[in-house]
């Protein structure tokens, strides 16, 4: 699972009000190189929760993203390629292969096997 997906995913248990962001417990992280596409990153930038992304990237062992969210104008202008490259690496190239996602409110663990998070809920959680 890539961090772009993690950034979209929230806990779905009934009664949980802020199930986002899910904490990441990483056991195995892999990197897969894919083509760099600045247009896609610019398109997605507005939708990304920066703080959650930085935290998740840290727990996968990648700490090069700036703490504060960069300005939208910086992303829009083609000037800062290095920042976009970092964003690209964090969002699309880091894969959480084995580990778990933890709901911040209830502490419920969603295991991640072979890169697939198991988001199935038990019957009493629906």
């Amino acid at each position: 699972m890539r961090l772009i997906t993690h950034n979209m995913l929230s806990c779905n248990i009934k009664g949980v009000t802020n199930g986002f962001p899910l904490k990441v417990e990483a056991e195995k992280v892999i990197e897969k190189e894919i083509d760099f596409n600045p247009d896609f990153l610019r398109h997605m930038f507005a939708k990304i929760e920066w703080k959650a992304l930085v935290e998740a990237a840290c727990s996968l062992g990648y700490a090069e993203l700036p703490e504060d969210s960069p300005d939208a104008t910086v992303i829009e202008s083609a000037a800062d390629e290095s920042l976009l490259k970092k964003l690209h690496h964090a969002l699309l190239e880091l894969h959480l292969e084995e580990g778990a996602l933890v709901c911040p409110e209830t502490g419920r663990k969603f295991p991640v096997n072979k890169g697939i998070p198991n988001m199935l809920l038990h019957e009493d959680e629906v």
Partner: protein
Amino acid sequence: MSNRPELIAPPEIFYNDSEARKYTSSSRIVEIQAKLSERALEPLALPKDDVPRFLLDIGCGSGLSGETISENGQQWIGFDISASMLNVAVEREVEGDLLLGDMGQGLGLRAGVIDGAISISAVQWLCNADKSSHEPRWRLKAFFGSLYRCLSRGARAVFQLYPENIAQRELIFDQAMQAGFSGWLVFDYPRSTKKRKEFLVLRCGPLPTNIDYGHNDSCSDDDDSEDEEDGMVCVLDRNRPRKKQRTNKKGKGREWVLRKKEQSRRKGNDVPADSKYTARKRKSRF
């Protein structure tokens, strides 16, 4: 359709390891899936500016439909309830991310982040109650509600469906409308029972003015007046009064028989040629 997988077992059990492998190694199914997903991407009406969009593939299975999305240059997340199917997808090294989840429990995605969704032959599974806790109405509501939340404004979702009957189709349609979507149904090849494909297109926000019409058999030679109605068939006017059948003592008449034979021919069935004996009554001595 007599052997519906929906009637055999719940999806997470029906698509076990062997079924998942069978499904993906059948070149026929692979081809059908690719065609269907290609067709489902058309009504999504994604802007053609070469910027990849972030799509959702609901019931992605082994990632056959996801491959078509990747070929179209889009990014995607796949959702499925069958772990075996997802394992096959991992082996095939699909490009999108995969999630093991039950769409009837809601999707659990943040609001407004997804640019569009497609789903190939999946949503009709929600009409089944496989466990005592399942209630199709609630599950459809949870699904459409969470989908409506996670789609961005103006985004569309396209579902290719195989509803078992009209009641199922209306149940799905009603729940989608209640979630806030506006939408319409597109039928490809509405006359043929085998080739007919049904797409439910939903949109966050009001109906657009340019609705696309279903694909049609190019080889059929109908007169023009019929052609216009061919593409899209509205199912909602089911209260239309039934046509009175014109029958008298002589039966329905030669014209009726000829018309029925013509209809059957258009569907591609083997029909005997018309002759002077067509629709002629047997002699009374029989």
